[in-house]
């Protein structure tokens, strides 16, 4: 599994342009947010800041994870499946996508802080939320990307399939982020944090259980 994990990092570095295009996508998105809302309103209200931030994350991370199965060539997949069990493949994918998502999320945070101020009071909690949400995104989207990669208009299908499922993660993250901006006690965010952990566990468990049924074609 560790080898698979490294393999994905190495193949990613060989396709640098895709990764860089995603970073550029994110930068452009944040800049558009800044131009359309940030300029008129010098300081955004906590609700709007967190909603904007997570909307940007949603649209970027979907593309980040979507390419994990859709970008693969038929040959590589067959090769991988002959080497490892589907369980190992999906776990390595989830962890790899988690690192990618967390990286993109941090980059997004930096750019948000640069253009749209950094209203976060409670940084450790916010970073914990970023990590948890990244894991949720990666485990949910990995399996959906595997499903969408089998259809002929994968990108649209990917978005349609994932939006309703991701709403839970998004709502919880927005709630915690708002608490972070207001500088509330950790107790105030305890319930949404537990929900986020719960959704993560549920999503990764079902991904692990269901993935073997997908790859068989």
């Amino acid at each position, binding site marked *: 599994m560790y080898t698979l994990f490294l393999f994905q990092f190495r193949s990613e570095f060989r396709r640098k342009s895709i990764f860089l295009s995603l970073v550029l996508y994110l930068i452009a998105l944040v800049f558009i947010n800044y131009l359309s809302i940030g300029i008129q309103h010098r300081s955004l209200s906590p609700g709007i800041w967190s909603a904007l931030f997570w909307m940007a994350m949603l649209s970027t991370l979907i593309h980040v994870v979507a390419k994990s199965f859709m970008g693969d060539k038929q040959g590589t997949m067959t090769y991988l499946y002959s080497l490892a069990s589907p369980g190992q493949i999906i776990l390595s994918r989830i962890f790899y996508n988690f690192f990618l998502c967390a990286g993109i999320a941090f980059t997004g945070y930096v750019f948000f802080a640069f253009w749209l101020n950094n209203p976060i009071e409670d940084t450790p909690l916010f970073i914990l939320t970023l990590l948890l949400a990244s894991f949720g995104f990666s485990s*949910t989207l990995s*399996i*959906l990307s595997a*499903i969408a990669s*089998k*259809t*002929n*208009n994968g990108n649209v*299908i990917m978005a*349609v*399939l994932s*939006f*309703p*499922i991701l*709403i*839970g993660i998004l*709502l919880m993250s927005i709630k915690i982020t708002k608490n972070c901006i207001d500088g509330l006690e950790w107790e105030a965010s305890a*319930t949404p944090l537990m*929900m986020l952990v*719960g*959704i993560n566990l*549920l*999503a990764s468990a*079902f*991904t692990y259980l*269901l993935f073997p*049924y*997908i790859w*068989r*074609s």
Partner: protein
Amino acid sequence: MKNSWWKILSVVLLIYTVIGGLLLEVPRLVIIHESIRALYFHVPMWFGMVFLFLVSVGYSIAYLRNHQQRFDTIASTFAHAGLVFGILGIITGMIWANYTWGSPWHGDPKQNGAAISTLIYLAYFILRGSLDNPEQRARLSAVYSIFAFAAMIPLIFIIPRMTSSMHPGSGGNPGFNMYDLDSRMRPVFYPAVVGWMLLGTWIASVRLRILQAEEKILDLEYEKNK
């Protein structure tokens, strides 16, 4: 005739629901007043929807365990009927909300949860529509259905209970909930739930037979042209 007792039961129960639901005595409560009768028609829609989706997910699991095309057809027809119930539930809820809350869409957590589950099942049918190979379609949509159902549970059952809702029975609103339902309403409410569930099953089974008949016709035509 022997096997259709539940269809007759469903018709009887629903006729009873309509007549009893509109004519029998109901408790008078502030704000809700006569609109409390929506309980007999709106709430059972959700019972019906969850029941039909459960059956659908059950057959999806059955399909993944032993690959029989029949299970996939059953799963999709039950999801179809469940979706119809979900949309009807939203519409009846909107009519009710228009008179009690003042506007059809009030951003209530339960309302949003219902909209999300409808979106999920619409996505399920779009996924089915975009796959040509029947075997692949059955497999992938079964996986999506199970995954989505697992993700939907916290959304429509847990979140509305955490946040305050404007629905009667929660958050100190006047009205009813499962435990303090007025005893005058029980004799109509429970038959209504069972009646609507049976009707949903009936709709699904009729659709299933239409699909099977169509398949048979296609097979026959194929034989003839061979």
